[in-house]
């Protein structure tokens, strides 16, 4: 019988996909939204969706590590370390994320760091690469986790 904790993993995956999908949608709308209040709404929605998407991705990875009985990374660099760890096969488990998805995750991680620290200082329309990363995660994360689950808990 499959481990019941996959339910929470799947919920986190769905949240990551939902937030990153909305982030792409909001990003497209920023450029054509000129009224000050509407523009602010769309920019804030975009920024929040990007941050929530990455947080949900981290939640996914942390739950997967927990399922494997693997201690999560700690310390000041744990956000980056988590992605690096997920991209590596380790102690009898395959990599959780393919390199291309891990690279996209690192891009959204760095975007979140910018958004948290410099939310009022940058032009959201320039963040195209982070949005492409979000799109890649939204489209590939479910199959990545399904592949990992099949290997670990067939």
């Amino acid at each position, binding site marked *: 019988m499959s481990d019941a904790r996959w339910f929470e993993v799947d919920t986190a995956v769905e949240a990551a996909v939902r937030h990153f999908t909305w982030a792409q949608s909001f990003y497209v709308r920023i450029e054509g939204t000129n009224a000050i209040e509407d523009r602010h709404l769309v920019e804030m929605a975009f920024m929040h969706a990007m941050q929530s998407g990455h947080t949900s991705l981290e939640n996914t990875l942390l739950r997967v590590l927990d399922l494997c009985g693997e201690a999560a990374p700690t310390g*000041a*660099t744990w956000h980056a370390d988590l992605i690096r760890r997920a991209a590596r096969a380790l102690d009898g488990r395959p990599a959780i994320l393919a390199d291309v998805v891990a690279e996209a995750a690192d891009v959204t991680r760095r975007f979140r760091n*910018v958004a948290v620290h*410099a939310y*009022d200082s*940058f*032009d959201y329309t320039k963040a195209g690469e982070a949005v492409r990363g979000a799109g890649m995660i939204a489209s590939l994360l479910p199959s990545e986790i399904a592949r990992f689950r099949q290997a670990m808990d067939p």
Partner: protein
Amino acid sequence: MQRIVTLTERKTAEAVRRQQAVAALALVLAEYARAHGGRFLLFGSAARGTMKYDSDVDVLMDFPEDALNQAWKFAEAACWERALEPDLLPYRWCKQPFLDHVAADMRVLA
């Protein structure tokens, strides 16, 4: 009794350590920038030499689009290796009012 190191002394020592670490960081960032056709721009307390015990390192990254990702990763790792907290932002993402605001402090590393 063992001499007590007060919190004020600890904070002062950490501020000094961070400022010294930034001096070393600036050298490697400048070297990287020269080798990769871009520049890093230090600003804020790290550029002014007024870091506190909890100050992070504010850096703008001005690199060609195809070199930005690697420059970002390099700068982030270079900060972490020196136990500094990076606050990195691509130059071309910045709004002009922000650039105007930090211009007085800005120190170009290239």
